[in-house]
């Protein structure tokens, strides 16, 4: 795919619910070992929060940072695997709540944990073709983990949104390159009418997460970029180990991965995960610094982006809460309150 020119992130915004459960509390419940927990703690959405409400809040910050009227938004795409309705779009509720004009393109996307970055790709295409001036790409999830399953330690809640438009002076960042690598790889799935997903345990590693991210990053290198061109690397974060492991395979030092890691304190926010990581990097990056971003969605695929921080980053960063503001806003719940908040107690 060709290098892009003139596509920029004008604003970004995130939302993380305030409840947390420690992984050690989940392991206490199920008699697991505390020695190798995949995260320290994870976010838990409350009864009044879902993918719609988190998408609305993240999107409102993305618009505030962009400093544009919501009326200029021409597309709202929401990627998630926990849309509240099976049929009825999340995007229209989000658009209405943030005051976007009804002359709008909108759809809900599904591609496991890369549904949010798929939204970015679609909005970028619409902006590049001149069909819209600005668009919102949102990834948000209230991830489901079956009680007692390995996923329960990490399946978390959060949202992230990017306002994407043509480049102008003082943007948050420019998107220099984007591509995607997909294949039919059945590592994780959820059938219709099922409440919880199934996964293929260890199969989710080598042939799934690692193969797809390594392959998508290779497309960036084939384009002429060198790993030295990047100051930061953000990968999808299903647990704390995987992003560092894929970085090691690629020869990227851990210090370039650490700034974008949110999973250890938030858990796996699925469609929001890599976008949340990029937002955390944008919270600290300096103009000119480059970010390598690679999402991963089971089933499977990886979207890859080359993002370069722009001159407007510091000014726009200050217009909305930072990722760390949400990480530090927390209240711990025990396993029973967690069950109640996630509506897992059924009479």
């Amino acid at each position, binding site marked *: 795919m060709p290098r892009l020119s003139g596509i920029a992130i004008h604003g970004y915004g995130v939302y993380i619910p305030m409840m947390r459960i420690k992984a050690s509390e989940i392991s206490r419940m199920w008699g697991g070992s505390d020695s190798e927990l995949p995260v320290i703690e994870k976010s838990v959405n*409350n009864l009044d929060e*879902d993918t719609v409400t988190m998408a609305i809040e993240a999107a409102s910050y993305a618009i505030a940072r962009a400093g544009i009227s919501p009326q200029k938004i021409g597309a709202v795409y929401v990627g998630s695997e926990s849309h*509240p309705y099976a049929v009825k779009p999340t995007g229209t509720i989000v658009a209405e*709540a943030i005051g976007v004009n009804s002359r709008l393109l909108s759809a809900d996307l599904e591609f496991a944990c890369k549904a949010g970055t798929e939204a970015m790709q679609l909005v970028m295409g619409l902006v590049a073709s001149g069909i819209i001036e600005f668009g919102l790409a949102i990834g948000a999830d209230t991830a489901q983990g079956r009680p007692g399953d390995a996923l329960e330690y990490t399946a978390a809640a959060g949202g992230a949104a990017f306002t994407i438009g043509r480049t102008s002076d003082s943007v948050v960042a420019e998107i220099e390159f984007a591509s995607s690598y997909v294949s039919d790889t059945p590592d994780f799935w959820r059938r219709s009418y099922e409440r919880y997903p199934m996964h293929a345990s260890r199969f989710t590693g080598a042939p799934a997460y690692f193969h797809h991210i390594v392959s998508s990053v290779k497309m960036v290198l084939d384009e002429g970029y060198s790993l030295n061109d990047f100051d930061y690397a953000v990968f999808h974060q299903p647990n704390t180990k995987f992003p560092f492991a894929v970085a090691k395979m690629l020869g990227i030092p851990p210090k370039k991965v650490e700034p974008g890691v949110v999973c250890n304190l938030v858990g796996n926010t699925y469609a929001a995960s890599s976008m949340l990581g990029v937002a955390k990097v944008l919270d600290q990056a300096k103009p000119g610094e480059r970010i390598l971003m690679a999402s991963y969605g089971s089933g499977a695929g990886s979207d890859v982006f080359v993002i370069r921080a722009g001159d407007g980053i510091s000014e726009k960063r200050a217009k909305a809460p930072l990722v760390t*503001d949400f990480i*530090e806003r927390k209240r711990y719940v025990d396993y029973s309150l967690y069950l109640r908040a996630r509506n897992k107690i059924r009479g």
Partner: protein
Amino acid sequence: MAWRHKRFRYRLVVWRCLNCGAFHHYETSICRRCRSNRIAEELLPSRAKLVTFTAVKNPPAGFESQAPYVVGIVEFEDGTRLLAGITDCDYEELKPSMELERVVRKLTQDGESGLIIYGYKFRPPIKKH
């Protein structure tokens, strides 16, 4: 039907009587209080102060799973008052005149198969670095 009041519920768009100051949460051409036809659309601010509050322990139908929950009266800078759900905060932490900000939350749902109702609530503002 909640959907007909979506602009009010999602964004606090109100229809204000320019004669007596009453506001309506639905579009109208005549003021319900003074019958004036001088009505203007207005967006209420996103921040307000808490006036008073209470914990609901015996909830009405549709809100059972959320009890106990807090409802309060918030006041905007211009003196407009509104009844609102208060979220992300324990009852013990609330104090009259504390600042709150508007968010959109899931209010209730019509059973397992009916519509989900979204609308405004207020919560303590996110502390910024």
